[in-house]
């Protein structure tokens, strides 16, 4: 086996970023971060230095845009005490601003900046440097050729000093203004692009690594968010090898259903209940929730359809009392309107709640509502990452899906997730002899035997009952 020399990396300790970069920024190299205003460039730089300082690695922030006190206030909103790091010599902020009243007479260069950078890196023994928005300052030179020459000089110096550098540059896809800095893309070892876009009135943030010299890296666009603790980039596990295999069988909580599919759901599996409106999807989900919490296992119920109070009330009718589990904290609701935020915020909210609760089961009711997070693609992005995250942790997932017509139920999810789903149960209301008959079929149950028949079921004040005999009427007493 041949071993390839891996280039040395400096971890950023920013959530998810090291995973995308396969370790971190290139040590002693230049990482270029471009993006339009407000995409989070300064924040990435700041967090890189703050996280580094917290690990005892001194860093320098040279900013041409922000005032030092403004940066300090900004950092404090993420709970970072930059003043404390500065006192300890672990962080040094240089706010390079140009006196607006200054006169200009003849040529000049950036030797002053280099001298200051040298002083700072030497006194603090800093190995990591963030240069924020040098383009703002360089424009003062009012000469594109000279701008390039000065920037080249600065980068060469940073390289000679073997400093791990992150440089932010503004970009605007709509304008050609960026083109004069295009040469930077060639000089940099690693180029990261940030953007935020509005899809169907919902804003989402995306990150993409355009280039990483001498290193593999994630090539997709990754959603990311600014949380109250800093940035969070959400990669998808590159391989599915980290997924925990399907485990033991656990009951569905619906009488008769377990017998139709080899004993119930399997742990670490992803299960889907699909059907048109009023077919009983939420009742199945609530039944599963109740039976899981009865075993003292924890359930996170992500509800895009109704408020916890309304759902708990409705479920009392089929005799599913969710209140005891809510009181003991075994059941936690996460109810949020899909259009309230972008998919990254939705994901982070879910991941955070999962961190706090450490659930055995995650229920999403209903995934069809996820389309309202923006588009079909947004729904796919959200669910893919959520399922991936759950499967990596070995959490059992139950999804419900609302379809518009019976025909659509054949499509399974409508969001192209079928390959990730282990069990599919279809619920139907079929008109027969002047009344609606509830029918259920197990379309798929990966790795297990399952019934191929259509079964009838009933929801009554005593719960849900599925007839295990093919096409047999459920016989239960009517009240």
């Amino acid at each position, binding site marked *: 086996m041949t071993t390839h020399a891996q280039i040395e990396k400096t971890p950023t300790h920013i959530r998810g970023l090291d995973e995308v970069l396969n370790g971190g920024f290139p040590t002693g190299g230049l990482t270029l971060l471009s993006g339009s205003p407000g995409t989070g460039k300064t924040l990435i730089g700041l967090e890189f230095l703050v996280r580094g300082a917290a690990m005892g690695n001194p860093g320098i922030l040279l900013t041409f845009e922000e005032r030092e006190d403004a940066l300090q206030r900004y950092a404090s909103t993420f709970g970072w005490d930059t003043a404390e790091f500065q006192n300890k010599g672990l962080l040094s902020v240089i706010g390079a601003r140009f006196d607006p*009243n*200054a006169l200009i007479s003849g*040529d000049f*260069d*950036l*030797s*002053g900046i280099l*001298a200051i950078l040298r*002083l700072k890196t030497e006194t603090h023994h800093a190995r990591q440097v963030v240069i924020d928005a040098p383009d703002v300052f360089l424009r003062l030179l009012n000469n594109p050729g000279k701008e390039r020459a000065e920037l080249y000089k600065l980068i060469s110096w940073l390289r000679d000093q073997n400093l791990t550098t992150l440089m932010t540059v503004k970009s605007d896809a709509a304008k050609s203004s960026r083109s004069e800095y295009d040469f930077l893309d060639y000089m940099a070892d690693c180029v990261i692009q940030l953007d935020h876009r509005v899809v169907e009135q919902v804003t989402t943030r995306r990150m993409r690594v355009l280039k990483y010299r001498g290193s593999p890296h994630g090539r997709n666009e990754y959603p990311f968010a600014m949380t109250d603790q800093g940035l969070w980039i959400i990669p998808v596990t590159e391989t599915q090898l980290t997924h925990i295999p399907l485990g033991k069988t656990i009951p569905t909580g619906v009488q008769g259903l377990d017998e139709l599919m080899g004993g119930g759901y399997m742990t670490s599996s992803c299960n889907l209940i699909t059907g048109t409106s009023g077919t009983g999807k939420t009742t199945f989900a609530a039944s599963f929730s109740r039976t899981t919490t009865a075993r003292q296992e924890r359930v996170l119920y992500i509800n895009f359809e109704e408020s916890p109070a309304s759902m708990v009330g409705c479920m009392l009718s089929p005799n599913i009392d969710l209140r005891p589990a809510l009181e003991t904290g075994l059941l936690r609701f996460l109810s949020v309107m899909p259009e309230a935020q972008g998919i990254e915020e939705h994901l982070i909210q879910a991941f955070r709640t999962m961190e706090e609760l450490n659930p055995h089961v995650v229920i999403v009711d209903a995934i069809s509502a996820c389309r309202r997070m923006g588009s079909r693609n947004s729904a796919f992005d959200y669910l893919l990452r959520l399922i991936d995250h759950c499967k990596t942790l070995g959490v059992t997932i139950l999804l419900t899906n609302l379809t518009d017509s019976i025909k659509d139920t054949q499509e399974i999810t409508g969001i192209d997730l079928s390959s990730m789903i282990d069990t599919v149960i279809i619920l139907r209301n079929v008109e027969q002899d002047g009344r609606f008959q509830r029918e259920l079929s197990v379309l798929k149950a990966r790795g297990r035997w399952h019934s191929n028949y259509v079964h009838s079921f009933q929801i009554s004040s005593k719960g849900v009952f599925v007839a295990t005999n093919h096409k047999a009427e459920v016989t239960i007493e009517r009240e």
Partner: protein
Amino acid sequence: MLRLFIAGNAFNSRIAIENLSRLQKKHPNTEFLIEVVDVNSQPEMALKYGIYISPALQVIEPLVSGIVYGNLNEEKVLEQILRL
């Protein structure tokens, strides 16, 4: 009182020094107090006064304080700020 920030032997820094001494010769009756600071050997001075660009001429007193960036090749600008 003037403070001229230069960067070692850099081209523009040399020109700035030449331009300033030419101005001195042109106005023999005016007293110039010039402190020359090399940012390369005294970077802490550059940091203290926020000099990120060089050369830079700081006008301290008795005139209204101000700053001129560049190699000072425009005599008129210089004369204007120094009230000559």
